[in-house]
């Protein structure tokens, strides 16, 4: 199928989606929709590198940095998020560089790379907690609200429709970035690196440079997603937005949806959010912990029996049917 043929339905779907807020759906539906869009963007950002065997558990750090930098600058100095967000993204990219460059130079790969990045996540979480005078520590923080609650300058909106459109734009931007990697020679080059770094270097591929490039792209997008999430939630917490927990959440959701397919992470976001909500509503305040346990068991089953995720499985089935026909 041509690129245009593939993107036409997606463009139409995006346009239809953009019209949804105009029909005034219930606030709860809008809340779920915004979360799905923003998490889809973040999971897509992770998978842009994760699909090449670069499994990072450090994305909690990038998310947290992207979230806290604009909020802190706003609260402490009144700096608009329009400036704070790029600075947060920049800081996330720098920390990705500090972790990525030595890892890739020294050929730290696979599980070891995951562990190093895990340390980064914890450093970010603990730093936020340690700076409790300005960040509120484990209690979290709230960006100072503007009077009336609606301001483009502060990027704060009462009407969820604004965040829906921002989320939609970011999500499409994430898919575009994915395609941009695929349309260049980077995709086969990164596949080659994932399979055999020595052989890749022997045919002239700058292994360190290419891995670093895709890592920085992924970190930047994740930080951007974190910033949008912070502006939307108006509440930042190091435990839920910067630690191991969020890093694992990203990895699980991306794997469950299918990190090798462009829409896999999006499916992962829908699945995990709907599942979380369904379990929360089903169990309410009875049987505390049951919801989390079921959630965890389901994810483990997914990863064991569908390593390529839901979208990967569907693709496989379609291909098998196509081969038979």
């Amino acid at each position: 199928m041509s690129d245009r043929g593939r993107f036409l339905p997606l463009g139409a779907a995006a346009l239809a989606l953009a019209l949804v807020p105009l029909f005034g759906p219930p606030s709860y539906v809008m809340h779920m929709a915004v979360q799905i869009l923003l998490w889809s963007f973040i999971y897509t950002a992770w998978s842009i590198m994760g699909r090449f065997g670069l499994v990072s558990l450090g994305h909690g750090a990038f998310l947290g940095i992207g979230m806290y930098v604009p909020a802190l600058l706003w609260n402490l100095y009144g700096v608009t998020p329009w400036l704070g967000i790029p600075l947060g993204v920049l800081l996330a990219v720098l920390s990705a560089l500090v972790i990525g460059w030595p890892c890739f130079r020294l050929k730290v790969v696979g599980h070891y790379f995951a562990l190093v990045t895990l340390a980064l996540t914890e450093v970010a979480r603990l730093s936020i907690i340690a700076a409790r005078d300005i960040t509120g520590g484990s209690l979290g923080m709230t960006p100072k609200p503007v009077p009336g609650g609606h301001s483009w300058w502060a990027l704060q909106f009462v009407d969820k429709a604004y965040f829906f459109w921002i989320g939609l734009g970011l999500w499409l931007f994430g898919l575009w970035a994915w395609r941009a990697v695929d349309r260049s020679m980077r995709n086969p080059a990164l596949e080659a690196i994932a399979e055999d770094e020595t052989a890749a270097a022997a045919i002239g591929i700058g292994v360190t440079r290419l891995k670093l490039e895709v890592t920085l792209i992924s970190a930047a997008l994740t930080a951007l997603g974190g910033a949008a999430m912070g502006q939307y939630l108006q509440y930042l917490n190091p435990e839920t937005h910067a630690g191991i927990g969020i890093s694992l959440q990203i990895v699980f959701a991306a794997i469950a949806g299918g990190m090798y397919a462009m829409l896999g992470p999006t499916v992962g976001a829908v699945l995990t959010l709907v599942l979380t909500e369904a379990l929360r509503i089903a169990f309410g305040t009875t049987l505390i912990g049951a919801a989390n346990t079921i959630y965890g068991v389901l994810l483990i089953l997914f990863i064991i029996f569908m390593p390529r995720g839901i979208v990967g499985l569907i693709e496989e089935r379609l291909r098998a049917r196509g081969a038979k026909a």
Partner: protein
Amino acid sequence: MLEVTGLSKSFGGFLAVSQVSFALARGEILGLIGPNGSGKSTTFNLIAGTYPPSEGRILFEGHDIGGLGADRICHLGIGRTFQIPRPFRKLSLCDNVAVAAYYGRNQAIAREEARAEARRVLALVGLPSDQDAMADGLGAAGLKKLELARALATQPKLLLADESLGGLDAGEMDQAAELLRRIRGEMGITIIWVEHIMGVLMKVVDRVIVLDHGEKIAEGKPAEVARDPRVIEVYLGSAGHG
């Protein structure tokens, strides 16, 4: 074109290559032979930049390339194949070679041009170039050809061909030897050829270097080297028993 002086490499306490020196002229085919573990592949890996030498100098067209990264050395014009083929199994044959054409050359080329080059080189070595052909369908001979195609796609001035004939039958060997001769003749690529099997190699190369235990023990025309008593002892002797 290539000048290697006092090249040594040790892994921990083990001296894999010791004080090896040789020179190579443009357009030559040089054979590098020796029994298993004699340091042939290590010498290749040092020239190709897979790891840095412990001692010694490698001059390629006047550049000191000792210790440069493998990707840089590839850009300078040295292509190599691996003794055990290392195909990228998740990529099509065409993409295997196209990434080499795209990233391996000294000057940038467009994506479509890289794909076209890949198809051209695949046809040259005799492999299918359609988009669906994968490495999984290839046997030993096919994988060796893929190694060669990837190396050629980077437009090398010097080709390091590592044991390119291991695991092939007699007919395939002659074909492969003929291909190397054509690569030198038609494309003007200088070749160093590492090989276990002396027979075919001796018919093609201009000059031979014999390694044993990491040291150079003989150098010269194939016919002279084959008469050298030390070579007969360490190489042909052992091969005769094996």
